[in-house]
């Protein structure tokens, strides 16, 4: 997770790039094996995965649309991983971000006026929504001793239930409740899409600044150092005057806030309404992105892009090869398992045979 302080940045980067290539080889071998077993032609499948994600600007714009929420969730998760928390509740935090955004925008629908005001309000609300959801898990963890994984999983189910209840209850479309979600917002209540790029520049800017802010907070401020200290030795951290409970809570709020923004963008730049599958599982995928990136901020953007490509590209598989699109998920899962394996291997190699 951390580089030894004496080795130069260049050699670390080289080693990590090398490891990524080793990993990719590992994963391709595994994927090809799966494809062969399922009777799919590996080369053709890879070709369609590639062309389906990077083959045209339209397809690439879909990739970027997936990259944005993945990156936001991954940024937030860096905070919780740094302090040693396993924030699996990121999925529910994203969902609650969407819910809070929808709630504000519905108010905006009733009072027509300046769209940017309502969009800003929705952004703030989604940060609060995600942070509140994460805060509940953080509170249960620090005050109640409930493991954050159990609390987070539970809250994920609750968040999903809240969405369904809203769509079929209080926020149902006039006349008929439908799986297609709530009423679609008018254009002023959505983020502007640059026509040439087919992507919302505001959403892209938000994701990029989240990366910069996260790298800066974790690398150059006392927040990052304190999170790391508590994550490595909570008992000693107390002796150094830190408050692990408070810091864990803060880390959860950051994770929830970033996930909330991701949820907001799902509503304001993709679907323009609340739908049952508003999260597209980007929260869970964000966990995999962070692990594959080895908790390294510099690798978050490329790894998230790779995951987004797999997600978008695998849509081609059923059309072109009559394969199930879940093959993309198989590849993603295999990648993460291979990464964890490589890191575990490196750890035992570095420390000799010491436990």
């Amino acid at each position, binding site marked *: *997770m*951390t580089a*030894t*302080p*004496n080795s130069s940045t260049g050699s670390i980067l080289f080693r990590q790039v090398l490891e990524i290539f080793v990993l990719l080889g590992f994963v391709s071998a595994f994927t090809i094996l799966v494809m062969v077993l399922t009777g799919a032609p590996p080369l053709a499948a890879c070709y369609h995965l590639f062309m389906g994600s990077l083959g045209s600007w339209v397809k690439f714009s879909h990739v970027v649309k997936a990259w944005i929420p993945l990156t936001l969730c991954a940024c937030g998760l860096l905070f919780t991983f740094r302090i040693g928390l396993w924030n699996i509740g990121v999925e529910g935090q994203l969902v609650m971000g969407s819910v809070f955004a929808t709630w504000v925008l519905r108010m905006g629908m009733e009072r027509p006026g300046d769209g940017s005001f309502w969009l800003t309000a929705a952004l703030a609300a989604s940060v609060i929504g995600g942070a509140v959801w994460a805060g509940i898990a953080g509170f249960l963890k620090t005050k109640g001793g409930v493991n954050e994984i159990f609390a987070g999983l539970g809250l994920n189910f609750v968040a999903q239930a809240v969405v369904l209840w809203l769509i079929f209850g209080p926020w149902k479309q006039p006349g008929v409740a439908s799986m297609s979600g709530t009423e679609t917002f008018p254009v002023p209540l959505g983020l502007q899409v640059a026509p040439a790029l087919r992507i919302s520049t505001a959403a892209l800017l938000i994701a990029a600044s989240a990366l910069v802010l996260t790298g800066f907070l974790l690398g*150059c*401020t*006392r927040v*990052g*150092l*304190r999170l*790391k*200290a508590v994550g*490595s*030795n909570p*008992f*000693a*951290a*107390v*002796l*150094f*005057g*830190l*408050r692990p409970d408070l810091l864990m809570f803060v880390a959860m709020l950051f994770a929830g806030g970033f996930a909330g923004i991701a949820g907001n963008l799902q509503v304001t730049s993709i679907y323009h309404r609340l739908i049952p599958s508003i999260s597209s599982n980007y929260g869970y995928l964000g966990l995999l992105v962070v692990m594959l990136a080895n908790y390294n901020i510099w690798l978050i953007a490329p790894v998230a892009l790779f995951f987004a490509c797999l997600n978008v590209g695998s849509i081609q598989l059923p059309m072109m090869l009559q394969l199930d699109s879940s093959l993309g998920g198989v590849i993603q899962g295999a990648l993460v398992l291979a990464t964890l394996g490589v890191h575990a291997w490196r750890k035992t190699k570095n420390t*000799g*045979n*010491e436990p």
Partner: protein
Amino acid sequence: MRVELVDIHKHYGPVKANDGISLSLEPGEIHGILGENGAGKSTLMKILSGFAAMTSGAILLNGRPTAFKNTATAARLGIGMLYQDPLDFLNLSVLDNFMLGHTGRLRLHRKLIRPHFTSHAQSFHFHLSPDAAVKSLTVGERQQLELLRLLALGVEVLILDEPTTGISAEQRELLYAALRRLAAAGKSVVLVSHKLEDVEALCDRVTVLRGGRVSGTTMRPFDTQALLAMMFGRPPVMPPRIVHIPGQEVLKLDRVSAQGGRAGLMECTARIHENEVVGLAGLEGSGQEAFLRAAGGITPPERGSVYLGGRDMCGRDYHDFRSGGAVFVPAARLEEALIPGLSIADHVALQADPPPFFLQPAAAAQIASAKIADFRIKGRPGTAVDELSGGNQQRLLLSFLPPNPRLLLLENPTRGLDVESVNWVWQYIRGYSQRGTGVVFSSAELDEILLVADRILVFFNGRIIKDAAASETDAHDLGRAIAGKLSS
């Protein structure tokens, strides 16, 4: 079996723990490895026992080069190590522990092994009941069990790391006898120690390490001054004791009961004053640890009250105790006191007061460099604390103490340190008590307590059963109290 270590190097980052060590172990010989902390003894033994991989060098067994991948390989080749803290499974019985590591048939034959174990134990005069739970044994008895287990596995080379720490005098004699018998039977015994008395009593040959290199080898009879010179370059002197006049009360425990250690703390009442150095004696886990942690606000008392400088600290946490002037330093340096993975400079940055929001790496490195120089720490600002040796970790911890605390609570501050480091630590801590700080420390070494403390509290089963000025008691008296027998 003849073992040769040839030009062993082991580097942890920039730190050269072993820097070209060569030595040979002959069958039938008790070979002492002597050296101060950080001299490279433990590292060398970890390499020999297959626990750590060497950076370069060779190990020859009976002249043949051998590569150890792990402890299992080493054990199969006949090399076994008895660790300072015996690595046994506390919830298992003595017999089950003994059978661990026996390869062969899947099913364990307790009935077959039991008589084997009993006769084995008796031949060494070890009184171990096969059905007792390991957690009920003393450290010395657990060591005897581990020794029997290693012998049953057929080790030819037996390595003992500081075997006489924490065991009774009687157990030490039994251990000595057992080791002499093993050497007479043709096995090689390696005794790693920083205690001259052990080495002088037992060893045929001694290799002294200093700074990761061999600084000398001598045969029996040994010249103590020569050995000390090889260990330190110059013989250390214990600073003379200064008698303090206690000042105002800084800490009061009023019928405090708390969890912790084997016995916890029960109904404990005590007062600590300014300028006073108080030593806590007793068998490990008899309440000393619980006392220090209750006094420092680490574990809240279940009953009773703690007063710091006259203020009732009920319901307060460590942060309040710290701002009230109490500082607690735990014994487990890497597990509880320092943060593995962070460098010396990072530790400095964590303590900046007031902490700047933006980290200032240059300033932190500068302060770290100053501390490294002042406290003679072998490391650099960027060195991760887990790469430092135990003695250097302790020096680093002392460098973190605030300048004028009211009360210092030190858990076993010299555990595992060599003579020179011990002297250095006490000289430094005495500076505090002269400036008015009340100092409370625990130690497993009675001699140390008698030498350093003004007042001694003896713990037995969670209670203070003796409270005496150091000048009015002696090792015999304390020894009886530690065992629960009060002299009339």
